[in-house]
């Protein structure tokens, strides 16, 4: 018979570490999907997810069971991804000279007629990823959660551990930072 999450957690806390495995198997897809939004290289993603699960095991006693385990785990996931962003701030200062031809074509089309530059185009995806990588960790976190995942300010505050006013301030700054990066990207040709 399949055991419930609460039973599995109680068993792990009681010393049966093997009961942790079904939880890892069940929630790893969700954790991997989140980690892939903040890191690009597969080896880095695996390291992040591994760290998340080891932390989850160590801190399981702090899970009070008032909210679903998934919420608790996602808080841990988002905070670990934020720590990763803060540690790996490389590439942020690089220029946009490496923009590929398809990306430049997409930008040309956007300038000529924004309607013809499709959001589904591979070049648009590459461009937005490039822009996100250049954002500061706080800005990237806020843009990802607020603008891309469409979460509320309160949800973001809960996930990140920041206060609601701080999330609002960071959201304002993040949008400005993103616009500045886009301006830098378009400076030579379009502005």
């Amino acid at each position, binding site marked *: 018979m399949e055991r419930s999450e609460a039973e599995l957690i109680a068993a792990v806390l009681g010393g049966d*570490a*093997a009961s*942790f*495995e079904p939880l*890892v*198997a069940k929630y*790893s*897809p*969700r954790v*991997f*999907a989140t980690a*892939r*939004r903040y890191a690009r290289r597969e080896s880095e993603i*695996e390291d992040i*997810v*591994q760290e998340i*699960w*080891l932390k989850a*095991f160590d801190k399981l006693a702090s899970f009070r069971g008032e909210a679903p385990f998934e919420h608790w785990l996602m808080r841990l996931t988002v905070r670990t991804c934020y720590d990763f962003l803060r540690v790996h701030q490389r590439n942020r200062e690089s220029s946009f000279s490496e923009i590929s031809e398809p990306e430049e074509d997409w*930008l040309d089309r*956007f*300038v*000529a007629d*924004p309607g013809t*530059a499709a*959001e*589904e*185009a591979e070049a*648009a*995806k590459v*461009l*937005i*990823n490039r*822009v*996100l990588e250049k954002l500061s960790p706080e800005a990237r976190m806020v*843009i990802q959660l607020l*603008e*891309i995942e*469409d979460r509320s300010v309160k949800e973001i505050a809960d996930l990140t551990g920041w206060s609601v006013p701080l999330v609002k301030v960071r959201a304002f700054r993040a*949008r400005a930072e*993103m*616009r500045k990066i*886009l*301006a830098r990207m*378009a400076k030579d*040709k*379009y*502005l």
Partner: protein
Amino acid sequence: MKRMNLADLQQKLTVAARRQPADDRVPYAFEKRIMALIAERSAVSGRLLWARGLWRAAVSCVALAVVSGAVSFFTPATADNTKDLSQEFENTLLASVDQADTTP
């Protein structure tokens, strides 16, 4: 050449990001890897616990040895052999044997 509208571009790229499907692939047997790491860490922490305990015991033994050495070094030697601690200890220990020898 037309100028670029940055607010529109920002909006368009945000929509592009939203439309990227979530990639939730998990490497093969990833949960086994996590469980192996947890087991390995538990074994290491068990060994660490023992090592820590043994080091504490070693430090206590060294401290006791130093104190004993200091006491014996700073205690003035007496000429009176009857007050020798080792002699008294031996006498006490063998008292019953001595009594058995002298009893007819």
